[in-house]
């Protein structure tokens, strides 16, 4: 079944590596400078995957250096499976996000499912118990059968994996825009909890220590698409084969429990642990060796294999799921085998840490690779990238921004509540088990999800946010807004933002305009992170998100976790009692570029964004948080898509209440999307103290009522919304679109 592999000479002349993503310049550099000989087939394959953007970040590394990644709480920054932050009491929270955009575009169920599976492994490889999952999904408009299929399958895949694992999917976001039609974004985040003493690293060191393989057998799944192209399969056979990765959440559940027993109870047997993610055994093993500066010798015949006659190349590059790599202290191999056997899993010694720094692979009694470890991990040719501000942004700065005209605010609000990006996502979120492990205090449908930390007074709040529209109009300001929005969601729930993870979803970085967007938006995000003291502790980059040459909006997803010091401070986003006073925190400006209103009325995203005062908003958020911790706040909701009007309606949904307000804004301003604002309700007794705390940042606007009506007297008119009806429209909009024939 194995096609005969090309010889080093043939590789040199036929250049198959070009198809594997290695440039001629890189190949020559490897031959002349790194190896001083021609690499064989397996070695060339190893360089191709290890030097891919996915593993080496050769394009994005210079940009990622802009992120702050340390502060007094960070225990582990980028560079390991996931980042770790101190939350007191000897405990830590661990989190990371990952994109699975391309696999999900091809095979949405398995693509999304294995995305979730991969990010969960990153968390438990650190020694942490995964406690929650979140997602961030961006699709095309719901007006095509293919898009509906993608949505249904992606959502089913995320739920299918998480539900089976018993990890609650507690939150996320979902938006719809034309630009994602051919290239949906599927980002998943996982949050774990651990005792600091159980912290693990992905290292292989200590002469003679064992490299052990655990979990599912290796098949030909997800091997660099080029493998199939280069091997000699007839057309007919090709249709009989598939390289799509299939997830097995049951296997992963067993693997997780076994690994947690190992890391939490037998740390003395263990030197390092890492999951096999992208580029499978190749990347996990050489990263483990590289981080420790060790040498490694692996015997590939010992790797458990699902399919017959696998070549060394295939074994090393396979992306079969649910596998982990361990470095075990010599002498404890049998104990480790026993531990895994108890969970019905096989643990196999596939190699040892050896002297020197070579990466030595043996297969069928011959040496199939013998190269310096660092040549794969550290010697990557970082690429200078060209940058150029896109014409559209240059032009937008010169033209006056679009100003909407809203004559009937009630009608506009009703329509806006039915826009898919704003409408209820319940039909999807209720297919996720959001409660398993019984810690979920606030589940999907709120600003942030909140989970209590059992046995303590603490809780953790978490959210994912991204808004490609703003980043598209102005990457730097858009980047700031993305971070601010995530932080606002946490603060609205009563949490102090701790740190963040991200997925950077962009188009082809070789296009100077796209690289500029990447760079600028990271600068914006980094600036916001510094002001908020929320370092970036982990993340992931997904480039080449294009379809037919059209790039998606540059869409950085921000995943943030916050700490609620006392569960008593958890704040609901929904109004609670009649007679409570409603305050608007933060000023409203003319922010219509990139707004939902603009999209709804004009069908376009256009204009330039106003500058953002990060310090001012940060201070405001800290004041609000302090008021919350003093027990002065009943409910809080941050303002985002659709502005004040939408947020007001949302705070009443599911309650028996309404709101009656009088405000000094125009009908248009009700829909402005100025960042960093909140609606807060306060009991009359606490009014004075609350206003004191907010130092002029809160404006009284009206009261919570007992009828299901939203009445807003604005400058020159009145909005009068029947909330019963509005909630029905909001709830039914997406189910209706999903059902309709095209």
């Amino acid at each position, binding site marked *: 079944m194995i096609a005969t592999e090309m010889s080093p000479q043939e590789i040199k002349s036929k250049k198959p590596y070009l198809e594997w993503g290695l440039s001629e310049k890189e190949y020559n550099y490897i031959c002349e400078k790194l190896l001083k000989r021609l690499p064989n087939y397996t070695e060339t394959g190893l360089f191709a995957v290890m030097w891919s953007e996915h593993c080496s970040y050769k394009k994005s590394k210079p940009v990622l250096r802009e992120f702050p990644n340390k502060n007094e709480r960070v225990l582990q920054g980028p560079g390991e499976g996931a980042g770790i932050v101190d939350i007191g009491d000897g405990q830590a929270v661990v989190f990371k996000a990952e994109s699975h955009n391309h696999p999900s575009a091809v*095979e949405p169920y398995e693509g999304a499912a294995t995305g979730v599976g991969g990010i969960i492994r990153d968390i438990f490889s650190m020694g942490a118990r995964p406690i929650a999952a979140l997602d961030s999904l961006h699709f095309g408009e719901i007006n095509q059968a293919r898009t509906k299929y993608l949505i249904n399958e992606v959502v089913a895949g995320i739920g299918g994996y998480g539900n089976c694992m018993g990890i609650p999917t507690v939150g996320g976001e979902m938006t719809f825009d034309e630009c994602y039609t051919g290239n949906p974004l599927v980002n998943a985040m996982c949050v774990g909890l651990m005792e600091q003493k159980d912290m693990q690293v992905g290292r292989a060191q200590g002469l003679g220590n064992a490299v052990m393989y655990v979990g599912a057998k290796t098949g030909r799944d997800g091997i660099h698409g080029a493998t199939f192209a280069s091997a000699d399969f007839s057309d007919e056979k090709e*249709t*009989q084969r*598939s*390289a799509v990765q*299939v997830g097995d959440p049951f296997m992963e559940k067993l693997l997780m429990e076994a690994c947690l027993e190992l890391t939490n109870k037998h740390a003395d047997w263990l030197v390092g642990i890492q999951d096999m993610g992208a580029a499978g055994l190749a990347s996990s093993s050489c990263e483990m060796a590289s981080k420790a500066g060790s040498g490694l010798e692996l015997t590939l015949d010992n790797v458990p294999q699902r*399919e017959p006659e696998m070549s060394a190349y295939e074994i090393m590059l396979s992306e079969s799921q649910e596998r982990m790599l361990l470095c075990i202290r010599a002498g404890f191999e049998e104990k480790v085998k026993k531990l895994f056997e108890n969970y019905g899993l096989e643990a196999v010694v596939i190699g040892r840490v050896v002297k020197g720094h070579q990466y030595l692979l043996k297969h069928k009694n011959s040496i199939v690779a013998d190269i310096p470890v660092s040549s794969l991990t550290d010697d990557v040719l970082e690429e200078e990238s060209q940058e150029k501000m896109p014409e559209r942004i240059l032009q937008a700065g010169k033209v006056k921004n679009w100003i909407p005209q809203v004559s009937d605010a009630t009608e506009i609000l009703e329509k806006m509540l039915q826009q898919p990006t704003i409408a209820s996502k319940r039909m999807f979120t209720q297919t996720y088990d959001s409660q398993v492990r019984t810690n979920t205090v606030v589940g999907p449908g709120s600003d942030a999800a909140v989970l209590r930390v059992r046995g303590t007074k603490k809780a953790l709040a978490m959210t994912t946010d991204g808004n490609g529209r703003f980043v598209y109009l102005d990457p730097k300001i858009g980047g700031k807004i993305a971070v601010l929005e995530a932080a606002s969601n946490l603060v609205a729930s009563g949490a102090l933002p701790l740190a963040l993870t991200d997925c950077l979803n962009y188009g082809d970085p070789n296009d100077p305009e796209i690289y500029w967007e990447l760079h600028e938006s990271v600068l914006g995000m980094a600036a916001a992170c510094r002001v908020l003291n929320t370092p970036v502790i982990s993340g992931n980059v997904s480039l080449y998100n294009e379809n037919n040459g059209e790039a998606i909006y540059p869409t950085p997803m921000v995943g943030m976790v916050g700490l609620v010091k006392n569960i008593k401070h958890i704040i609901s986003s929904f109004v609670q009692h009649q007679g409570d006073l409603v305050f608007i925190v933060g000023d409203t400006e003319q922010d219509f570029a990139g707004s939902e209103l603009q999209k709804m009325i004009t069908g376009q995203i256009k204009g330039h964004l106003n500058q953002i005062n990060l310090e001012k908003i940060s201070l405001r958020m800290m004041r609000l948080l302090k008021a919350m911790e003093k027990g002065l706040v009943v409910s809080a909701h941050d303002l985002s898509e659709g502005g004040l009007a939408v947020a007001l309606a949302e705070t009443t949904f599911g309650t028996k209440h309404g709101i009656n307000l009088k405000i000094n804004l125009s009908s248009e301003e009700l829909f402005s999307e100025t960042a960093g604002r909140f609606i807060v309700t306060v009991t009359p007794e606490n009014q004075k103290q609350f206003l004191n705390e907010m130092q002029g940042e809160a404006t009284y606007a009206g009261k919570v009522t007992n009828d299901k009506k939203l009445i807003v007297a604005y400058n020159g008119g009145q909005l009068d919304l029947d909330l019963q009806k509005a909630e029905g429209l909001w709830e039914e909009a997406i189910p209706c679109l999903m059902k309709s024939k095209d």
Partner: protein
Amino acid sequence: MINVRIFVTYKESVFDPQGETITEAIHSLGHDEVKQVHVGKFFDVQVDSSNKTVEKTIAEISEQLLVNFNLETYRYEIMEEA
């Protein structure tokens, strides 16, 4: 009326965790003579058409709906004319 049975199976190289788990369960019941189990699904479809067009119908609904070609392949049998 023609009755057709469409068989859908995983492609050869696709990992089939279900088949694997069931095989293990059968072994744990003591049936070691069972070497391998693969799971598939089938659709019994009743078509109101002539023999000529039925093949087209089956190909279309299989390709559009019943089969996921990333992972699966299909075969069908015309069972009988009802």
